C-alpha cells in the first residue's frame, strides 16, 4: 500500500474497497486500544506456554529460551493471560496518558 489509510481519499479506493494486498490486517495496530499492559515476571515463569495458547490475538511470542514476550503492537490488554497463568507470573500495569 503506497499510502496509509489516513492518507487515502475516496478517489484512491479500489471498487467496493476491495483489498488487493493479502494479510493487510497485520498492519492494524490493535495495541492502540490497550489501557493496561501485561508485565511478565520471568522469575516465576515455568515456560508452560499457556499464555501463548490462550492469547486471542497471538500477541504473545516465545523467545529463543522459551520465555513468553508480549507484542505490544497487537496486545489489546485483555488480561486473559493473567487469568490463565498457573503461576500468577503476569500482572497488568495501567498505561499512562
Amino acid at each position: 500500500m503506497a499510502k496509509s489509510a489516513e492518507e487515502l481519499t475516496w478517489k484512491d479506493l479500489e471498487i467496493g474497497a476491495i483489498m488487493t494486498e493479502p494479510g493487510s490486517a497485520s498492519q492494524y495496530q490493535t495495541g492502540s486500544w490497550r489501557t493496561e499492559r501485561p508485565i511478565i515476571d520471568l522469575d516465576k515463569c515455568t515456560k508452560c506456554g499457556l499464555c501463548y495458547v490462550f492469547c486471542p490475538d497471538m500477541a504473545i511470542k516465545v523467545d529463543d529460551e522459551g520465555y513468553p514476550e508480549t507484542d505490544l503492537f497487537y496486545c489489546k490488554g485483555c488480561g486473559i493471560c493473567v487469568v490463565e497463568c498457573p503461576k500468577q507470573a503476569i500482572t497488568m500495569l495501567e498505561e499512562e496518558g
Partner: protein
Amino acid sequence: MKEKRIGMEVSQAIAIATKLADVDVISAYPITPQTHIVEGVAELVADGELDADCIPVESEHSAMSACLGSSAVGARTFTATAGQGLELMHEVLYVASSMRLPLVMAVANRALSAPISIWGDHSDVMAVRDTGWIQIFAVNGQETFDNVLCAFRIGEDHRVLLPVMVHLDGFHLTHMIEPIFIPEQSEVDRFLPPYQYPLPLDPDKPVSMGGMGAPNIYFETKRAQAEVLTAAKEVILEAWKEFGDIFGRHYSPVEGYHREGAKVLLLTMGSFSETAMTAIDALRDEGKEVGLIMLRLWRPFPFKEFRQAVKGADVLIVLDRALSFGGPGGPVCSEVRSALFNEDKKPKVIGFVGGLGGRAVSPDGFKEIINRGIEVAHKGSEQEFEVFGVRE
C-alpha cells in the same frame, strides 16, 4: 429488427429475459407474487434451455447472500423477491451495493405485514430506498422485460458496478398476460456484452472483499459509493439510448404524457400510470389542461430531468403507494417536494396516499384525485397529505 411479439405472463417474460441475458446463477426464495418468475427461470434451467446454476436457499437473506458470492466470482447473477422477502434481505442489500456487485433483482412490489397482504403497493420498495441500489420502475410488461436486459448492461458497466432492482407491481404486472416483443439472441448479444468483474474472487489472484472499515476509512468508502450511484445516471441514459437504437423502444428517467402545456400534473410510478393515462385522456376531453409524469428512475433520483418535466406546471399531484407513518405522507412526495424546494418557480405539490395493499385506483378514481388535488392547491388543507380510497 426481427422481433416476435408473443402473448405471455409478464413473470414468464422476465424468465426469458434472464435466458437471453445468459445468466449464470440464480438464487431466490419463492414468495407471492414473485413465484412465477423463479418458477419460470428454474424451468428454463431444468429444460436445458438456460445453462445456469439454480441455488435453492432457505430464506431471502440467504438468497441475497448467495447472489453476493456468485456475482463476486464474476458470474452473471439474477434473483427476484417481493414484500416481506425484500425486507428479510435488507441488511444484505447494503452489502451488495457497498461491495459494488452488479446483480439484478426483479421486485414484485407487495404490501408489508401486518395484516398479511400478498397484494401490491410500494411499501417494500420504499423501505429499501437508501440501500444504494439502482432502482427502475416498470409501467408494463414490455418495460419490465426491456429493463431486466438494461439492468445487466447498466449494472455491469465498469463505470457503475452496482446492483439493480427492476420494480414491477405485484399481480398488476407479475400475473398480467401481455403481448411482449421478444428480440433475437443475436440482437441481445449486440446490446449486452459478457460480464467481466474487474477484481473477482480468484484463487490465482486473491483479493479480500467486505473487510472492516475503521473510522479512519469507512466514510471514504461511503463517499465513493454515493458518487458512483449519482454518476450512474449518465450510463443509464447511454444504455437506454443504445437500447432504443437497437430495439426501437426508448426509455427516459421521467416520462411525460400530455405534459405539454399542462398546468396540472399528476405523478405516478409503476403500473398505475397506465390507468392514470385513461383519466388524463378523459380530463383532456373535458378541456382541462392536465398531464401525467411517470417517474421511471427512482435511484439515482433524476433531479435535472424531473425539474425539467414539471416546468410550467402550477400544481403537481403526487400519488404514493406507501405511507411514511407519522411523517409527511408518501416518500415519493417528500422527495419531489425536496427536489423543488429551492427552485424559484415551482408548482404547488399536493401529496396523496392511495392504492395500499392491492386496492385499485380506477380511471374515475384518478379523476377524483386530480380534481381534489386542484381544490386543495387553491383552497389549502389542514392535513399534511390526502388519503384516497379508504372508507372513512
